[in-house]
């Protein structure tokens, strides 16, 4: 197996190899050119670890293969029909690019043969220019590939990867590639089906590669119905490699725009188990920890807490307290609802979250009108009805608290808007209203700061009833 690779990988090809109109014949070109002698530049690699060399050659193979594919799309894929057929092959190719294990094994089917040979054969003797070309012209090749817009990005990533693999032997236009690739990647993130070879870091240098494919259909079925997982592992890598993959770039995901490539690639970190199960667990754990972090931001007082159990305790307590607050407020609202005049409804709806000056004016005007109606002598009846219950309302207002000893209320910007609106009201209203509102304002403050027991409230409610 390795000998085959040796011979095949030793081929140095010009970047533009595919001159024939159909890709299948292009594949044959690659196959035919596989008999060329080993590139002397590669001999240096032989001194390194076999595995590393194999991987580097694979990457260089990928690199050159894809560079050739991408750099010369015009000649290859002319016409929609041909391109369509080509895309399948290319997709197969891409799909198998990550399947490094397949390269080692004897290719079983024709498709495998072509793809394997494609991997095996070409070595670009001038890596930087094609990469530059690739990186700079992703838009143009995209037009050629029907629906395979992520291809250029993959190719670009390949270039980056390939350059890394040579470990400085070649001239890596790294920063440029790295800068461009993430940009390209971010736009096309959902469409990328990454293989480990696509990692912009020297992921392979860190060692283990493992892939999980959630769905894979190599046939023409567009729907990803069969969730078959294929996990392939590689042996441990050369410990000389010092680079380590970051956690964020360990995973890439693909969306079903590309029906063939719906899998999650996970890279094992350096020094960690390559077992598929442990990798799956790590993915799961990271998902959960991500969400716990979000929750931590949301729930107050969770910054000091570490550990899932305590965090969950806090979260549960917080949710319970919020629900209790809602119940309590609904009780309060029910008591207020029964006594209020319908005039209140007019300004209530716009009053609650005043956000703009226009609303404020409306609120003020409406409050004015409603206040006048309330204060006028024509509404004695309503006043009388409200009078005996107002005192109890005042009672209710003061000891109000969210029935929770923690100061959750204070952290919520509850009455910020409201107090602003009240201050505006005071300027427009009559003196009595002014004093009342300030009293209400003061009571709000007390309400905010007080942490009195909630027991008083039900007793007050009972008293008034």
């Amino acid at each position: 197996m390795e000998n085959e690779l040796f011979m095949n990988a030793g081929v140095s090809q010009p970047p533009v190899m595919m001159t024939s109109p159909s890709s299948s014949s292009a594949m044959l070109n690659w196959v035919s050119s596989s008999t060329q002698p080993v590139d002397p530049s590669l001999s240096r690699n032989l001194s390194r670890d076999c595995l590393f060399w194999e991987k580097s050659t694979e990457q260089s193979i990928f690199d050159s293969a894809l560079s050739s594919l991408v750099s010369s799309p015009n000649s290859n894929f002319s016409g929609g029909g041909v391109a369509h057929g080509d895309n399948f092959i290319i997709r197969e190719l891409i799909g198998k690019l990550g399947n490094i294990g397949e390269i080692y094994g004897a290719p079983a089917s024709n498709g495998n043969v072509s793809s394997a040979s494609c991997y095996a054969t070409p070595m670009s003797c001038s890596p930087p220019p094609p990469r530059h070309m690739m990186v700079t012209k992703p838009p143009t090749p995209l037009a050629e590939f029907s629906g395979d817009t992520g291809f250029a990005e993959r190719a670009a990533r390949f270039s980056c990867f390939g350059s890394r693999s040579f470990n400085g032997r070649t001239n890596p236009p790294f920063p440029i590639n790295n800068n461009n690739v993430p940009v390209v990647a971010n736009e096309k993130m959902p469409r990328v089906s990454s293989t480990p070879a696509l990692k912009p870091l020297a992921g392979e240098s860190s060692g283990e590669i493992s892939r999980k494919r959630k769905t894979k259909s190599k046939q023409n079925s567009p729907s990803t119905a069969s969730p078959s997982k294929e996990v392939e592992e590689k042996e441990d890598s050369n410990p000389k490699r010092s680079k380590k993959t970051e956690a964020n770039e360990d995973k890439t995901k693909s969306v079903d725009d590309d029906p063939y490539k719906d899998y999650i690639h996970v890279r094992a970190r350096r020094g960690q188990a390559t077992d598929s199960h442990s990798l799956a667990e790590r993915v799961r754990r990271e998902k959960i920890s991500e969400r716990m972090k979000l929750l931590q931001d949301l729930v107050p007082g969770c910054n000091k807490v570490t550990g899932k159990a305590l965090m969950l305790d806090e979260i549960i307590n917080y949710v319970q307290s919020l629900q209790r607050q809602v119940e309590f407020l609904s009780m309060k609202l029910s008591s207020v609802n029964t006594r209020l005049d319908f005039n209140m409804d007019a300004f209530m709806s716009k009053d609650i979250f005043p956000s703009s000056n226009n609303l404020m004016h409306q609120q003020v005007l409406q409050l004015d009108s409603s206040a006048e109606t309330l204060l006028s002598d024509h509404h004695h009846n309503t006043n009388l009805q409200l009078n005996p219950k107002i005192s109890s309302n005042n009672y209710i207002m003061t000891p109000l608290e969210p029935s929770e000893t923690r100061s959750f209320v204070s952290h919520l910007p509850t009455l910020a808007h409201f107090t602003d609106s009240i201050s505006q009201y005071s300027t427009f209203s009559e003196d009595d209203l002014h004093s009342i509102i300030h009293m209400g304002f003061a009571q709000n403050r007390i309400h905010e700061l007080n942490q009195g027991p909630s027991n008083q409230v039900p007793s007050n409610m009972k008293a008034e009833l």
Partner: protein
Amino acid sequence: MVNSNLFPSIEATGGESSTESRRKKPRISETEAEIEARRINEESLKRWKTNRVQQIYASKLVEALRRVRQRSTNEPDKVVSVAAREIRETADRVLAASAKGTTRWSRAILASRVRAKLKKHKKAAKKSAGNCKSRKAAATETNRIKLPAVDRKLKFLGRLVPGCRKVSVPNLLDEATDYIAALEMQVRAMEALAELLTAAAPRTTLTGP
């Protein structure tokens, strides 16, 4: 967190509605839903804080409360607790409605009313209670040892968030995030509303004779 002045609720619903259909697919949806869920999570914390959402909720709440009041005026002899429960359920429904059906808990809240009515009609309460008991007994028989603390708490959290009892852990945490944000907004709205109403009411005492 910054109070965003955008209207992420619109865009969020656009993206989330498509996530809905995807989430129904078993395996594929996980990969896409994860991306979507992450986006939703980042947005959900903001969408419940926008002024627009708050205004929508407030206005809807007022409308609902008015309707409840009209209904309650027909039946004046209501215990406070019953009225409070009605108002709470109304508020929850309004909250769920303003979530626009993108989250599981909102759908569960909106569906719970229908389910309760159906159960009453079909008298399935006895059957379900029996099933629950048998299930619980089976669970305790098989798992003599208590579940680890974290799992217990996750289960409890699942019971707290409506409609999230049999939901996977990452989804449960997503739902809990959105639910907490929504609850905070609800509390703020109801507090402001209550303060407004109670502040308006005592005017009459001081002006009265």
